[in-house]
């Protein structure tokens, strides 16, 4: 990756940038606008990109700043939303009783922008709390609290703290989570 010219490297981040734009805006038209602005800004300001730093973080930062400033300009907290999460369902959910992806996506869709953003950056994209805080221009603790609040909200919406629901998710999670000592019946 590091051997690529910055403008070539930019191309490698476009699918992730697109995913970030879609998950933040929840609207294809808005995501396209944000992405177009971001690509244009990044390309024409490539001299401002510090080689060796995280280009993905730089691109995501441009995009989210764009998004929040246009949201402020339009003075609306509630965006037009289309069904981007369910539209992009490419994997058929299992039918073994585990909670289905569609349920998860619908619940995720209901979170406030800031919580959705924090969860995507930390939970899905692998940024640290510190990196996510820098990208969002807030303290690390603020990101932690957004992630926590997002998780709590998802837990409520999906009733994950019901013992029954948790057992249903066991088969899905056990493979990843590994060695829990307690017996699960």
């Amino acid at each position, binding site marked *: 990756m590091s051997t690529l010219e910055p403008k070539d490297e930019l191309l490698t981040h*476009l699918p992730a940038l697109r995913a970030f734009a879609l998950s933040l805006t929840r609207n294809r038209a808005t995501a*396209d606008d944000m992405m*177009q602005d971001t690509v*244009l800004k990044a*390309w*024409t300001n490539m001299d401002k990109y510090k080689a060796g730093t995280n280009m993905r973080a730089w691109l995501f930062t441009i995009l989210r700043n764009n998004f929040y400033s246009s949201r402020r300009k339009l003075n609306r907290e509630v965006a037009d939303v289309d069904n981007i999460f369910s539209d992009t369902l490419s994997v058929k959910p299992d039918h073994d009783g585990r909670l289905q992806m569609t349920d998860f996506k619908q619940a995720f869709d209901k979170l406030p922008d800031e919580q959705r953003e924090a969860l995507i950056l930390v939970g*899905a994209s692998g940024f640290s709390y510190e990196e996510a805080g820098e990208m969002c221009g807030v303290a690390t603790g603020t990101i932690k609290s957004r992630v926590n609040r997002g998780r709590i909200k998802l837990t409520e919406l999906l009733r994950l703290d019901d013992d029954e629901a948790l057992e249903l998710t066991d088969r899905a999670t056990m493979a990843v989570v590994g060695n829990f000592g307690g017996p699960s019946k």
Partner: protein
Amino acid sequence: MTSNDDQKSAKIAKYIDENLKQVFSDLERDELPDRITDLLSVLRAQDDAKKDEK
């Protein structure tokens, strides 16, 4: 009790993160819009034209 609760919330957090990764990778497979690929072609062409001027 506390340890059970910790296990439970760790399990829930893990479950949520796995789903988030799945959502994100589904979205990553979304095709790039034409206007973005068109924009990139224009930007490339502009760069090439600038190089030729020099």
